[in-house]
Every structure is written in structure tokens, then in C-alpha cells.
């Protein structure tokens, strides 16, 4: 049913056809199921001590729980951005805009961190 209607939609929206890809319900359904699945995984992982790894050269330690939690959250974000927000099927301009937003956010976090790490860590 959705395939036939998708064809109908494409014929009606002819001027949009090359640019305006219409994402179908089956894609949305699989994405939402994946998102719910990842939510379950991240809750489950928070109950388990995933330990840590020391990096001997730098004296830094990686704690795996927050790394895993953030990795799962980033995966969910990528799924929402690509499919629910249609970025996978969007123009180069849109893709560039999204990536530049990500870059600016990383600059926000990274540059603020360099300030604290280099001189004022914990002194509050």
C-alpha cells in the first residue's frame, strides 16, 4: 500500500522529484524501533560496571560507562538527523550546514575545555 501511494505521491509532486525525496513509513518504523532498542541498551549498560582503561603515557583514564552511553546517544542522534530530519536525502547545502553546526559545537566544547584543562581544573 505504501509503495503504491509513494508512486502516486511522486507523480503528483513531479517538480520536486529530483530533490524532494519522500521517505516512506517503513524506513521511519525501522528507525524508531532501532531508537527504542538503543534506549533499552543504554539503560541496561548503566547498571553494569564497564571498568576503565589507563593510558600510561598521559596519566589519563578512560571510564567506559560514559563513553558507551555517549556513543549510543550519538548513534541515536545520527539516526534521527539522517532519517527523521531527511538529511540523508537533502541538498549538499543542508548537509554542509549540519556538519558546520557539529564543527562549531565541537569548537565550543573543545576550546572551553582547553582553557580549563590548561589552568583552572577543579579550582572552583
Amino acid at each position: 500500500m505504501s509503495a503504491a501511494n509513494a508512486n502516486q505521491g511522486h507523480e503528483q509532486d513531479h517538480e520536486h522529484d529530483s530533490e524532494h525525496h519522500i521517505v516512506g513509513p517503513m524506513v521511519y518504523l525501522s528507525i524508531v524501533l532501532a531508537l527504542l532498542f538503543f534506549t533499552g541498551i543504554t539503560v541496561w549498560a548503566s547498571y553494569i560496571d564497564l571498568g576503565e582503561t589507563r593510558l600510561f603515557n598521559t596519566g589519563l583514564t578512560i571510564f567506559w560507562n560514559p563513553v558507551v552511553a555517549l556513543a549510543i546517544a550519538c548513534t541515536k542522534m545520527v539516526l534521527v538527523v539522517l532519517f527523521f530530519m531527511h538529511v540523508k536525502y537533502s541538498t549538499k547545502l543542508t548537509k554542509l550546514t549540519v556538519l558546520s553546526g557539529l564543527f562549531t559545537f565541537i569548537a565550543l566544547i573543545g576550546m572551553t575545555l582547553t582553557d580549563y584543562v590548561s589552568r583552572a581544573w577543579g579550582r572552583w
Partner: protein
Amino acid sequence: MSDSTVTAQETAGSAQAHHGEHPPYQRHHFESVEQQFDTTNFAMWLFLLTEVMFFGGLFMAYLLMRNWYYPAFVEASHQLNIGWGTANTAVLISSSFTMAMGVYSAEMRRKGALVFFLVLTFILGLAFLGIKSIEYSEKWEKFHIPGIRYSTSAFTNPQSDPEVYKEYHDKPLPPDMASKTELYFFLYFAMTGMHALHMIIGIAILGFMIFRAKNDAYTTGHVTFVENFGLYWHFVDIIWIFLFPLLYLISRY
């Protein structure tokens, strides 16, 4: 581009960018519906990027405070009910699904389906706010409102809170670390409060859209408003996708 005296009988080779040949919802400063759609889409994304920076500041504060006062953040996070948090996450993810289906219905020009999915999204948004209000009122009762009604007794003496203690068996925090739990709750209310404000604004616009959708505003080919609102709604969902593990799932073992 062309003034009103130009007739519609232009050269056959030109595309549909002619006065008198464009759909009524195409504004005159655009050459085509596609350009109009792409332009408004780009503008919406720029707005969303400003929102990313806005929330980014709060996430940066969280990053620092959690790393500096980790034990306080762990114990304070145990005061949040993981059941309600997970339920809220499921509610928002489902509302993103219904919103995406709404956009699809608008693109397919199916008014009934569009209204149905917008109403579902509306209800799920309200459900999210309802669960949030349950959580917030519990914070008020337990004296966990920073600056206004706050007590660290649940953290200097965890056994005074039997419900939480029997699940996590937290160690008592020394007073200076216990005072940092107020920082955690400040971030909790700042971040979820800003998020809830965005939800309220989104739900209000949804109400407007449901009314307009019933009057065929979005099912004649002009899906831009619905699609761009969808972007906003998915963005609010993404913010919660990050808030949930950071606030609720710090360490539950």
C-alpha cells in the same frame, strides 16, 4: 524578476519560473517552489544551529561539574526515577515517529492522516510534560530545589531516604561534596527546564498546525511549514536523547 504586464506565454524552453505559472504559495522573490523550500529549510537549520549552541553552553557546564564533583553527581542522580526517565525517552522517540509520519502524510496530501499524526504528536508531547511535572513535584517534596528549597540530608545521611537507599546503598558524602549535589540539581532544572520550555512552545505551534491542517493548509503541495516544524521537533527529541543518559544514567551500579 518580471512585472505583472508579462504574459504567461514565454519561451517554451524556460522552466516553470514564470509569473502566473507558479503555485499560489510560491512567493515572488523565489524562482521556483523548490528554491523556496530549500531556502526556508536552510534558514530553519541555521536556527537549529543557534539552539545547539544555546544548549551547548549548558552541556559544557555539565561536563565540567560532573568531572569535578563526580561522587556528588552520582548520588544526586540516584534521586531521579529511571522508570519515568526511560518512559519519557520512549514517549519522545515515539512522538518523533508520529511527527515524521505527519510530514509524510502532508507530502502525500492526505489530510486525515496528517491531522491524525499531528494530534498523536500533540498528545505524546503532553504526556512528556505530564511525566516531567510528576518528577518535578517529587523534587519539591524532597527538598531538592536548588537555592529555594534545598537540603543535603539525603546525601550526608543516605539512610534517611529508604526508597533510594535500598536500591543503591550510597555512602554518606562529606558536607563539602554533599553541597555540590545542589549544583547537579541546578543543572538538572536548567537543562530539563529549558527543554520543557521548548516542548511547550512546540506543542503550542502544533496546536496551531492542527487547526490549519484541518483547513487544508498543508495538503495542497505546500508542506514547508510542517516539514520545518518537524525539524524543530526532532531537534528537541535529540536534546532529550542526550539529557537522558547524562542526567539519569550516570552510574547505577
